[in-house]
């Protein structure tokens, strides 16, 4: 027996996959809220909605949302917003320590570490054309 840590039971039961062709999509789906740590090996997918995470997201953990992602704790793993191609999706992070961030398929890894002016800082991430922009959040 092997153990999958995809952590499907963290997923909201209301966000089961639907057939997009035959069904009229609702105007919005409720935001998925995760209020505990997301740990190595766990993956959270907010299908068709935004994702709010209140606990730490550790290295080796993965957040995916079709909408925006808000993390009110350190992001040490991966965050993938606009996973179905929404170029207006954004990521908001309380403390940027990430391995990877991505919006609508445009991604950035931090092989040589995160630049000093952004590391451990609150930031927002958005797309400008095909450029992924990471900006400090002014407080």
């Amino acid at each position, binding site marked *: *027996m*092997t*153990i999958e*840590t995809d*952590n499907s*039971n*963290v997923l909201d039961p209301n966000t089961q996959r639907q057939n997009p062709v035959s069904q009229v999509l609702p105007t919005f789906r409720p935001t998925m809220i995760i209020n*505990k*740590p*997301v*740990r*190595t*090996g*766990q993956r959270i997918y907010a299908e068709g909605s935004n994702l709010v995470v209140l*606990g*730490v997201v*550790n*290295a*080796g*953990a993965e957040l995916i949302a079709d909408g925006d992602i808000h993390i009110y704790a350190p992001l*040490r793993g991966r965050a993938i917003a606009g996973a179905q191609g929404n170029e207006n999706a954004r990521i908001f992070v309380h403390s940027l320590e990430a391995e990877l961030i991505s919006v609508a398929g445009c991604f950035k890894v931090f092989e040589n570490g995160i630049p000093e002016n952004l590391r451990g800082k609150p930031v927002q991430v958005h797309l400008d054309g095909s450029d992924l922009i990471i900006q400090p959040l002014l407080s």
Partner: protein
Amino acid sequence: MSKVIVVTSGKGGVGKTTTSASFSSGLALRGNKTVVIDFDVGLRNLDLIMGCERRVVYDIINVINGEVTLKQALIKDKNCDNLYILPASQTRDKDALNLEGVERILNELKESFDCIVCDSPAGIESGAFTAMYFADEALVVTNPEVSSVRDSDRILGILAAKSKRAVDGLDPVKEHLLITRYDPKRVEAGEMLSVTDIQEILRIPLIGVIPESESVLQASNAGTPAIHLDKSDVAEAYRDVVGRFMGDERLPMRFVTVEKKSFLKRLLGGR
């Protein structure tokens, strides 16, 4: 109400078996009827550390297969009256350790024991999963290095999502961080993670810090759990862990800073 406590880590060689032996002995010394179960099928070594390897006749797989009764397989500890050991098998297939069988054994043990300590094998495969599945509480054993902390994080994720308590929607498994093989000198030199660094990542309550010490090897060679050693930091640290587990929250956290050697000690060459 009896408690099932798993000693787990993900990574191997971090001190799970050492901890299981000392922690279960400490619980027994404090008057709890305790049994410690070796889940490391194929790599049996809890019985060595407990010094009872020559008395092993039957093992947990024999009990699961219904070949012997639990009573026949339990070995009484040589140091503590209240302590029994249920050894692992050295020769059987790991898959014989199935969830149904283990649940049956645990339920039977709950009738006569206060504390059931499960010494988990390394990894996140079936053996480690079986050891943690029925846990009420978990001691997550972590060394001050990045790979060990990462593996502990993964185990915490599995405990939170896949344990019986999680699956049944009960209160979550109570998690305790136990940092072992801690060497304050190497932490100060920046060679190892500090207690604060580890807590920052794992974010669960700290139940104790066990210092790195040669006496652990001597104790295991002698077949005596380290908690029984005289005048040993490791024994003191494990006693503190048991004290905190039993609810004494005022115990100060010791062995986390470099001890300044007194002039006299230096003169006498003591460590």
